[in-house]
């Protein structure tokens, strides 16, 4: 058997539990193959359990493990880093819990926080240089770890309660969709619900719009006086929270 054929058989055993492939290694190999299969699946379960801790708490251990096993059956890992294996799980949650959207939302939040934790470093904010900025032309540099998602439930509140070891609130469908922002400030991943219009403005800034263009957006929505003051307040908040890490 060529090495390629052997490795394809091993893959078929691990990913599909192909007994036909296992048989080609001979009867004596079976105890060892079982150990490799157990190692393979245990690693993937551990990855999902660690990354999706709040989903696991929300669903309960037994149900989570059953869903993780089903996901592993359908989704063999492809990337060299085990961390990447977590990326496909929220899609499985969305498919499996179409009538309970808070589960996929919890999953997205678990994953987004984990990814922000090891995401790219932004430049350190130079507070002194902000005084010299020409705000008419300035383009805000948004935290490179920022991720956003529309939530239709109070999953963010459920996540916070579970994280604090408190009794989570019952699931509630929001009257209006909320946008959740996830990013990393210094070394800590954080999240919050965006204010109205805030996610749009962050997206505009991320696309290279000037701060003046963001102000114009707000003035168009809120009027001259309120718009200018809202823009100033948002900028101050973004700088304080590390959502803006500088200007260009």
């Amino acid at each position, binding site marked *: 058997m*060529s090495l390629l054929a052997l*490795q394809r058989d091993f893959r078929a055993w691990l990913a599909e539990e192909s007994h036909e492939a296992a048989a080609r290694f001979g009867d004596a190999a079976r105890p060892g193959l079982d150990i490799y299969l157990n190692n393979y699946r245990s690693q993937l379960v551990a990855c999902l359990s660690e990354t999706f801790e709040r989903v696991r708490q929300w669903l309960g251990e037994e149900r989570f493990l059953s869903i993780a096993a089903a996901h592993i059956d359908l989704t063999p890992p492809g990337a*060299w880093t085990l961390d990447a294996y977590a990326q496909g799980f929220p899609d499985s949650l969305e498919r499996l819990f179409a009538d309970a959207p808070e589960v996929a939302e919890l999953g997205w939040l678990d994953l987004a926080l984990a990814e922000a934790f*090891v995401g790219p470093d932004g430049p350190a904010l130079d507070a002194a240089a902000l005084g010299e900025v020409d705000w008419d032309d300035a383009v805000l540099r948004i935290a490179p770890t920022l991720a956003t998602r529309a939530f239709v439930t109070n999953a963010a509140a459920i996540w916070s309660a579970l994280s604090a070891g408190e009794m989570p609130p019952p699931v509630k469908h929001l009257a209006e969709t909320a946008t959740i922002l996830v990013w990393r400030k210094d070394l800590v991943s954080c999240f919050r619900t965006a204010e109205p219009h805030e996610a749009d403005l962050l997206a505009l800034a991320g696309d290279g719009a000037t701060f003046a263009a963001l102000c114009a957006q707000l003035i168009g929505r809120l009027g001259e006086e309120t718009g200018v003051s809202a823009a100033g307040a948002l900028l101050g908040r973004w700088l304080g929270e590390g959502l803006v890490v500088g200007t260009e």
Partner: protein
Amino acid sequence: MHGSSFGLGLRKPHYADFLEGESSVPVDFVEVISENFMVAGGKPRQILRQVRERHPVALHGVSMSVGSADGVDRDYLRRLRALVDEIEPMIVSDHLCWTRIEGFNSHDLLPLPYTEEALDIVCANIAVAQDLLGRAMLIENPSSYVAFDDAPMTEWEFLDAMSERTGCGLLLDVNNIFVSATNHGFDPHTYLAGIPADRVRQIHLAGHSRGRTMLIDTHDKPVPPAVWALYEAAITRLGPVATMIERDDDIPPLAELLDELAIARRLARGEARQAA
């Protein structure tokens, strides 16, 4: 430079010990799992940079897959090279195994048949890796649970030939020798005798567990007496070699691992294991 040095694996429960104490942890080097730090940024990279300010670092990988029949992943190697350039490690190592084939990644160290074909593939892959990394690597003998009886070479013969052809060094995991020898019924001292002593640059020590049918390389227990005895035989044959203890599960307080490392130091000096 690495001869009589003794190190520990850097694991999360010990980050504070390594970073916050007024004096450095008394080790000559620390070894980290490369992939844990091959990330874009954030706390892991910062921790590694801080540890590097205090200690020499060995980068030990688990995903290079030098045994893949379809070659090594060049994107992986480029990322590893970036980490190497930043950290300037004393050692870069990975395993004699395969983890990936045709887009599937097992995240486990899978066994190779010790054939001429596999030797050609492993040597070609190591050559690509060493070229991209700009340095010689160390390759570690794995624990294994499946042996390919029709393979013409023993593992030690394969390691010898691989090292000779690629110029790579060897990382000898004494626990892995013990585990594989028990599982496959060969004499671990014959293994040691067949290893090219001048190519061994580092030794790993660890504990294992007894599974239903085989020993499993779990790294969740102290180094057991049988592995210490084999280590004693190894250093008698090899001379001073950089030695470190791996512990990946049921991780005890750092002091317990330092006590274990003290045993390795005593044995390397030719003293009895139990001596004070």
